[in-house]
């Protein structure tokens, strides 16, 4: 049987390649100091993705008994939100609407110097090198990023018509992959875009209304406690977001929060509690 890939390798060995000067952040652990390691990456094919470029670098490091660069990655098709590093000061690099794994080397030029750093935020402690801990996002989600419906308790899916506009809009927010680029790009390390998109997805929909106020208050409180900064409406997050989530969601979260405060302090019925007996 012919080896398809082998044929392939022979024919593509002539793709244009780049020689790059990398400055990669190295940090052995959360409490250790870090530094920029300078690495020459030679003959990087322009058709390689950014992570494949790092793979090549790591293979070289391993071959000389060096310490490979630790970085998070998984699906490598731009949807899992695992990868993320700051490339020349911009999370996920220079190409708008693109995750690091989907950024390809053809975006760079031969001889370029590339700075590669981890996402920096107090709420995202560095684990090692370029790997950070984003569990703050999970805590925000657990504070209200859901609709409380038990499995099996649902009515027929078409029993509740939802306007296409609302569904599409909800989907715009739901596309968030939770990568954390919004936090990394924000000079305040604010998680507003993430929180706004997650809360907004549900708040747009009729199913999300019963818990809306509770959701918004809970998620914002947890966001604040996790050590993220405040939004100062500079919109760097929107520009860095690989899924192009708009800052209109932040406006909506602000509005929903204000309404929730009014509801919670003035309008909410005072119940007697109990009722489960």
């Amino acid at each position, binding site marked *: 049987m012919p080896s398809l890939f082998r044929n392939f390798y022979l024919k593509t060995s002539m793709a244009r390649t780049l020689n790059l000067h990398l400055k990669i952040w190295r940090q052995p652990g959360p409490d250790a100091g870090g530094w920029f390691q300078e690495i020459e990456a030679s003959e990087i094919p322009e058709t390689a993705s950014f992570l494949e470029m790092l793979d090549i670098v790591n293979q070289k490091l391993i071959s000389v008994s060096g310490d490979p660069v630790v970085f998070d990655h998984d699906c490598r098709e731009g949807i899992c939100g695992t990868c993320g590093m700051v490339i020349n000061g*911009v999370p996920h690099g220079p190409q708008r609407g693109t995750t690091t794994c989907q950024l390809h080397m053809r975006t760079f030029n031969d001889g370029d110097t590339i700075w590669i750093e981890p996402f920096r935020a107090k709420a995202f402690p560095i684990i090692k090198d370029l790997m950070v801990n984003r569990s703050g996002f999970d805590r925000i989600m657990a504070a209200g990023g859901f609709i409380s419906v038990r499995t099996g308790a649902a009515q027929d899916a078409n029993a509740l018509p939802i306007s296409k506009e609302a569904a599409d809009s909800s989907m715009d927010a739901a596309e968030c992959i939770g990568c954390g680029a919004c936090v990394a790009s924000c*000079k305040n390390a604010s998680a507003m875009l993430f929180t706004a998109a997650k809360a907004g997805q549900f708040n747009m929909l009729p199913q999300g209304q019963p818990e809306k106020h509770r959701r918004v208050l809970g998620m914002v409180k947890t966001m604040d406690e996790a050590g993220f900064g405040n939004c100062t409406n500079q919109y760097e997050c929107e520009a860095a977001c690989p899924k192009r989530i708009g800052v209109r969601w932040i406006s909506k979260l602000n509005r929903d929060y204000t309404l929730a405060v009014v509801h*919670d302090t003035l309008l909410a019925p005072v119940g007697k509690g109990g009722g489960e007996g």
Partner: protein
Amino acid sequence: MSTLTHAVALTVGSSIGKKALVAVTGAVLAGFVLGHMIGNLLIFAGPDAINEYGHLLQTMLHGMGVWVARIGLLACTVVHVVLTVQLTRENRAARPGRYGYDATIQATRSSRTMIFSGLTLLAFIVYHLMHFTLRVGNEYATYKTTLHGEQVHDVYRMVIDGFSWWPASVFYLIAMAMLCSHLSHGVSSMFQTLGLSTPRTMGTFRMVGRAYAALIFGGNAFIVLAVWFKWVH
């Protein structure tokens, strides 16, 4: 009182609540700036017009009006400043490490210098109040003129004399530039923070913010220039 403490916790105790208060107080201050400028522009309508306006402010509601306004503005300023300083400190703490390669994608310069422009303005306001309201170190308190047979404060001459001293007018122009920068981000930001902007209105609000800032700068700077070039005297 539990409702009140709860409300306070949800506003002053939360990021969005604090920013909403900053936005509301900012809106009051931005509105004041516009009114203040329109009043000052009466200088071009001649001494009587601006002096009458000054007298009206002083005597409104038997002299209480000006104090209500002053206390209100002072409160807004204090809340605005205290909360923004606090927010800025929190924000700096949230981003302890700096990037080795610093880049900005789309944030405007004015948005990135809000605390700087704001604190400069604060310093200016203190100076401005001492200069024209408390009249420290000058003789303006003695400037009097007669209007409709009544003796009133001569605002017109005070302004001309005040801006004739070049250091004061240069500081004034610098402060107006800061105000312009502050407003060009602050006004549209206010709509965003209060949740009033939508995808359709966001662009408009941004334009409105810039236009508003330019208007305030233009109007106020024009007065200084008019005094300098002796268009009014």
